[in-house]
Every structure is written in C-alpha cells, then in structure tokens.
C-alpha cells in the first residue's frame, strides 16, 4: 500500500512538473518568437533602407546625369585622337 501511494505521488508530482514545464517552454517560445519577429523587422527595415540608399545612389550616378554635368557644367571633353598617346609596357 505504501509503495503504491509513493508511486502515485511521484507520478503526480512528475505530471505537475511536466505541466509547468510545458507552460514555461511555451512562454519561452513566445518570448523568443517575439524577439525573432522584432529582429526580422529590424532586418527588413535595414534592407529597405539599404535599397533606398542604393536607389538614391543609382539615381545620382545615372550616366546621363554624369555626362550632362561633366560636359555642361564642368566643361569636360573626351581627349581627341591627337591628345591620345598609346604606351607600350
């Protein structure tokens, strides 16, 4: 009888403990999930920011614009044939 009681209470305790474990693990997983989402959002936002900056850079570095500025504003020209020297190393 004692043995049965003992076995029963051990099992009962184990059940309660595992139940608490489940609750705890679940809570942990939720916390981790929230962190994950937060980090994912941060990553996405940084990526978007990077994309925007790339876009901005590409717009400023647009060939047509550079050519306009080089030729028009700065008065640059490509060297003519006479001004070109080919060097053999």
């Amino acid at each position: 009888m004692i043995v049965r009681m003992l076995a029963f209470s051990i099992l009962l305790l184990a059940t309660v403990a595992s139940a608490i474990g489940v609750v705890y693990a679940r809570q942990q997983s939720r916390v981790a999930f929230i962190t994950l989402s937060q980090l994912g959002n941060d990553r996405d936002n940084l990526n978007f920011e990077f994309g925007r900056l790339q876009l901005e850079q590409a717009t400023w570095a647009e060939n047509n614009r550079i050519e306009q500025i080089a030729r028009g504003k700065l008065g640059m020209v490509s060297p003519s044939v006479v001004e070109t020297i080919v060097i053999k190393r």
Partner: protein
Amino acid sequence: MKQRRQPPNPRTRLYVVLAMLGLASSALVVRAVDLQVVSKDFYQEQGDARYLRDIPLKVSRGTIFDRNGEPLAVSTPVESIWANPPELLAHADRIPELAKATGLDEDALKQKLEQYSDKEFAYIKRHLNPDDAQAILNLDIPGVASQREFRRYYPSGEVMAHVLGYTNIDDHGQEGLEFAFDGWLAGKSGVKRVIRDRLGHEVENVELVREAKAGRDLTITIDRRIQYLAYRELKAALQEHHAASGSMVILDVPTGEILAMVNQPSFNPNARGNVDPAYKRNRAVTDVVEPGSTMKAFTISAALESGKWKPHSPIDTSPGTFALYGHTISDVHNKGMLDVTGVITHSSNVGAAKIALTMTREHMYDVYHRFGFGEVTGSGFPGEASGYLPIPQKWGPVEQATIAYGYGVNMTPLQLAQGYAAVAAGGRLRSPTFVKGGEQPDHAVIDPEIAANIRTMLETVVAPGGTAPRAAIRNYRVAGKTGTARVASGGSYNKQYVSLFVGMVPASAPRLVGVVVVHDPQGAYYGGTVSAPVFSKVMDGALRLLDVSPDNVQNWYTSAPDEGRSVPGGRKAAATSDVATTADDAAE
C-alpha cells in the same frame, strides 16, 4: 359491467423506463460524439476565428544588378494612407488638417469620404515616402492608418526598359527578365498566426505558419555603362536618319554574355501609363529581320567548307547582274572579276549567288543551321522569336541564290550576333545568356581555320575600299559586314529598308561582337552609312570601358617609364593610363 383492469406488470414498466433512460443517455452520447469528434473541426474553427488571425507577411522582390553590381531594379517599401470613412467623418473637424497634410483638395477629400461612407476602407493617398506617411500618422487623426506596399523603381529608366521588363501593381513580373525570372525574384510571402482581442489589437503571437522567403537578387550580364552608350548612340543615329526603330546587341565573345541590348523607341518603366505596346517590345529578341548581306559570311563559310573555294579563288561578277530563271540578281556597282574575299569586301550579290549555286542546298542549309539560324538562341528571354530558315527541300535555284545573300530568311538581331560570335570564337557557337555566371556550353560548328579566314575577309570590309570604312575604330582592328535589306510586306518588297551592321573587335582576338539594326532610315539607307558609325562609336567606348588592349597601334609611345617615374616632355596628363584610349566620340 365494469371490467377490472389488470394491474400493470411492474416488469414491463421497468423495461419501459429503462428503455427511455437508455435512449436519453445514448442521445447525449451521440450528441457528445457529434460535437467532440464528427464536427470538431467546424467548431474549433469557429472558435479560433473569433480570436485567431492569420496575417500575411509580405516580402520584397529581389533586386536586379548589372554585371558590376549597380542596381537596375529595386523594390522599396512605400506607405499608402487609408482611412475608415465613418470613423473619420465622425471627426469631420480634422478633415481640413488631413487634406493639408496630404496635399489633397479638401472638398474632393470630403466628397470621397461621403462616397465611401458605407465602407470601412478607402485609400487617401497611395505610395508615399515612409517619412511623409509617418508625418501624417503623427497628426493622430482618428480613422487614418497606413499600409505598407512595395514599389519597384528602375533607376536606369528607358535605357534598360526592354531587357528588364516590368512588374504589375501586385509586384508580379509581366515582361522581360522580370517575367522570365519571376519565381526567382518574387520570393514567398509568409503567414503568421496571432491572437487578437475584440478591438483588433494583436495580443499575442501564436506561431509562424509559413516562414516568409525573401526574393532573391539577380545579377545580369548587362553592363550599365555600355548599355547607356549603345542607347545614346542608337538614339542619336535614329534621329539623324529619321528612322522608325532600331536595335543594338553587344555580346562578350568568350562567354556569350549579353553586355548590352537596346531598342528604340523605348518607354519609361517608372511611369508607364498608356504606352504604345509597340514601344515595349524588345525588338532585338522578339522581332525578325532579313539579314541581307550579313548572311554572306555564312555562305562563304559553307563555300570554304565545301572545298570548292579558297579565299582567293576568282569569281566573275560582271556585268553586275545575273539572270536566273527570270529573276535578276544585281549588284550596286559592277565590280567585274573578284575573288571570294572581294565578294565579302564589296558585298557582291552576284558573286554570292554564283558561289551558292556550286554547292548543294543541303550543305548550305546545314551550315546555316549549325550557326543557329531558324532556332531560338536559348537565351531564355520571354517571347524570343526563332526566325525562319526554310528546309532545303523547299529551295529552288532562285531561293538558293537569294538566301545566299540574305533574302528569304529571317532572324532576330540576337541570332545574328550569336552567329558572328561563333565566327569570332574560332567556329564555336555558344548560346547567349542574360545571367551573370550563366555561361552556356559551346560546341564546334565550323573549322577554326575557316573561321579565321572569314575574319580576315571581314576585316577588308572595314578597310578603305570596303563597304564600311566608317565602322573603323582607332587603334583597333575591326572585322564586320554591312547589310541592307528591303522590308518584305504582303509578299513583295516595298521601299522601306533595314540597315544592318555586324562586327567584331579587336579582330586579332575578338572580344566583342556587336549588331546594329536600323529600320526605315530616310535618305541614306546603306548599312555602311547608317549603322556602321553607331557600331564604331559604341565599340570605341566599350573597348575602353572593358580595358581591352589595342591591337593596331601605328605609333606606340615606346619610351614608357617605369612606375613612379615621371613622363618626360610635358605629356604627363595623357600618359598616365597604361591602356590606350581613343576618343572619336568627343565631338558632340
């Protein structure tokens, strides 16, 4: 008399009561089983639906880069301001504030809200810069919220429009590489399950139902700088000659990579609106042209392969015309006695026709087919045309002669570039590719020696006395071929012309192949006049951009100093580059 009823049998009573109780309890069991087992899913779902929500996780589309890592197509998040009209109308005093913040007309905004007053959602302003959207949200007007959407931007605009294509409002590829690589670029949106309270606030994240997979980036073979150069020169040539349309393709010979592909007319993919669909076609891949005299390089390849002809075998082209079954083949000028090389140099139709008639139809067809004509190139571009090369059984002598100089067959500019790239690569054909690192395997289509002979012949075209001296590039040897084809329409040829030039540089070890096609130029229409100068200008710049060593320098500046020592004689500025630079395009 009254009959006494028999007293009821207690046993029967008992049975009746038991049966009723049994029925009642089995009804309960049935109901319980129905709820717990049979209809469980339905009730579970109904229960969940009252607080669980599946929220889509949107992903952005991958970026498209050029070969040097310059962004060509970028998705960036934008915010769309929307309102819940009844809620906003309940606070009508805030509407002028909102109108001012969004730059909308106050009355128009009010009218719109009235119109949607029985709905719970109405866009106020779409695709706003996130900072501007945040400023509006910061006003804290009831019923106004924002929603994230993605917009695709193409910083290169119409220069790159045909190759890249575009996406629709849902960010799905519709044309061009955006369409061809949609699955790669798009990614997969995910789903997240959350618990929401009665007011719609997210209380708790439950699980990630499906992880979002962001779109992957794509690096293509186009070089933005060369592309721009080609675009600019082609556009200028079209304006100068008042031509209807045109295309240019530049291939990298060793790898088959497409370095540039431009078409005119073009469109701005950032603001499409109502663009004529004809402007959106990537003509270099979807439209076919008759190759005209550019076909002769392949005819002569076949002639050399047949063994009956050598580069200097004589051929009589006088009197400049050649009657064949009632069909007259004619040259622009009577060149009299030529050799096989001369047929290429002066682009003699008579010579090409006479040479063709010494060969079998099957052999000619075989050579053309090996060079990839009549079949798609395998570039993977959506809507690519295969061109038309009739089977030899359909050829009569007239067809055999006319196909030899490029009439009665057609091909895309890309196919033509591919064929010449095979000549440039020592007789090895390689499918062109748009994807960097997507190099296709090559295979031999003609003897390397024949390819070398053809290249030597093609060099005479660009030399003085050939048909395209204007394709020449300072300090480089150029090999190429002009072509002029009349546009076929309704079974006959009309007065419209197509001017072609296809060439390779540097001729001693070709690195680049370029094709220029100009449709319907007014006035001058010869390929050597209209298309060859475009080739020269673009290739000159492309060779410089790619650092290709010159192979034809008359005056080397041989006293080049070692590193760190100054150049004598006030030539410091010009001599700092170790690669030759020429600049014919300075004149603008």
